[in-house]
């Protein structure tokens, strides 16, 4: 009969090194997540999502799935705790980031009083393209909301409170800035008229469909179980064939959608917003591309990060 050796875990404050908690009789197969739950019992205001535990104050924090037994510690483990601050779940974050722009744009579309001169309060623009732009913008964010609720499965549980404030100000502020010009009484419709609007609208819809297809594909990838990790690949859906050329076609389609929106409205602030979005998404895409290339030995070399054959 084997005796299980129980572990003891000592938790110290990472900054002040003061002793916070001593856990004894910890099962060797417990995960860091279990230890965080135990720590939470002694300190109820530090819920597990807020805790960062590491073996050394300067090290990166340990993952929740790491098993105590597999860590380079003796039977008495010393861990250092860092408070990550109040956390919000990713789903909540995405919802807040999507509802804001959707509603803000509508405020400007309906020309709520005190935004434009009072002569124009609660009037509507005579241009068809402005109505179209409102429909496109609203559909874009509705699609995002639906995806957040029904499609996305987030790997990280939470995000710090400060980040959500910063992100929301950015998205809500930019949406207000765009909406101000598109719905302005002195708005000038595109130079090439109907032709420009219709072509741009078509490309916008294609990009939105593409983006949605990619999200579905990525979701199915995750659904097949986490045992065998595979990188995303093209499926029968033609929109996913962009995977032949690019690691993150969802970002490519997103940039495409915003570019066509800016051509459709012929509005410079929209183009600037598209540029900023492209820069941020290019950074994310490059990171993901690097992670894929490192993890999978047979990763196709023709694939670029976000722009086929270029970036």
């Amino acid at each position, binding site marked *: 009969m084997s005796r299980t050796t129980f572990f003891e875990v000592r938790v110290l404050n990472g900054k002040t090194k003061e002793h916070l908690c001593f856990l004894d009789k910890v099962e060797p197969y417990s995960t860091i997540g279990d230890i965080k739950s135990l720590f939470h019992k002694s300190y109820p205001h530090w819920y597990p999502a807020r805790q960062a535990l590491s073996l050394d104050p300067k090290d990166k924090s340990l993952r929740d799935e790491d098993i105590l037994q597999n860590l380079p510690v003796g039977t008495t483990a010393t861990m250092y705790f860092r408070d990550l601050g109040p956390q919000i779940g990713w789903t909540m974050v995405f919802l807040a980031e999507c509802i804001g722009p959707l509603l803000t744009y509508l405020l400007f579309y309906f020309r709520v009083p005190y935004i434009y001169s009072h002569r124009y309060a609660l009037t509507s623009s005579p241009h068809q393209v402005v109505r179209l732009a409102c429909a496109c913008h609203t559909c874009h964010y509705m699609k995002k909301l639906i995806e957040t609720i029904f499609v996305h499965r987030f790997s990280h549980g939470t995000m710090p409170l400060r980040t959500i404030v910063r992100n929301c100000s950015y998205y809500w502020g930019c949406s207000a800035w765009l909406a101000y*010009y598109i719905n*302005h009484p002195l708005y*000038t419709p595109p130079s090439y008229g109907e032709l420009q609007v219709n072509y741009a609208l078509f490309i916008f819809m294609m990009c939105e469909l593409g983006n949605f297809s990619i999200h579905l594909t990525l979701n199915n990838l995750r659904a097949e179980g986490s045992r065998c990790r595979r990188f995303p690949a093209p499926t029968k859906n033609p929109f996913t064939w962009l995977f032949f050329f690019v690691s993150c076609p969802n970002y490519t389609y997103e940039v495409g959608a915003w570019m066509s929106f800016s051509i459709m*409205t*012929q*509005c*410079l*602030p929209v183009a600037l917003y598209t540029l900023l979005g492209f820069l941020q998404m290019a950074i994310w895409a490059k990171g993901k591309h690097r992670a894929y290339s490192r993890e999978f030995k047979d990763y196709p070399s023709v694939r670029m990060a976000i722009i086929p054959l270029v970036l």
Partner: protein
Amino acid sequence: MASSEDDGTVEEKENNNKRRTKSALATAWLTFYNIAMTAGWLVLAIAMMRFYIQKGTTKGLYRSIARTLKFFQTFALAEVVHCAIGIVRTSVIVTGVQVCSRIFMVWFVTNSIRQIQSEESVILFLVVWTITEITRYSYYTFNLLHHLPYFIKWARYNLFIVLYPLGVIGELMTIYAALPFVRRSGMYSMRLPNKYNVSFDYYYCLIILMLSYIPLFPQLFFHMLRQRRRVLHGEVIVEKDD
């Protein structure tokens, strides 16, 4: 087998040599840069003093040093490049913000808006900048040459406590004085309707910039205070993790 091992060490030595020449080159360039900037700001300081002593007034002082100021202040953009390529270990963002605010003041406020060039606030921030820059660049020069006199270190990490707020006051007063002229002339502004459906009002932009000093100035000031504690008192400051 033995030959491949030799190749390995030869390659290592070559890489080490390359690194050493690169860092020697970097040090040589930085030394030259800092000496040049110290000299430039000294010239500015002396030109300003000469003007005031000879003419007894500050009217027209800005015009007399405008070209030199523009040259040396714009050249400071090189410092952002230094941080970006890593030969100077400072944050690109902090340096970028400081250099950009200087360039903005010189080119977009005092250079473009003639009427404020005879204001006293301009002289105030010019004097502050001159003293600060001479101290800073001579500090870097002596540091690179490993012969740093204590009084320069003391000056660099203590004078800013007085000079930084004074400089901010001078800059803010100058922008405030420029506002009516900007409004009247409508400079750098674009109104609706236009083909690209965009508008820009330089007047409100200046007001927003003035307001942005409120969050930015304390951050930069406390950054300098933390540096001061670390350098002068050897305290180890624990930075807040993001």
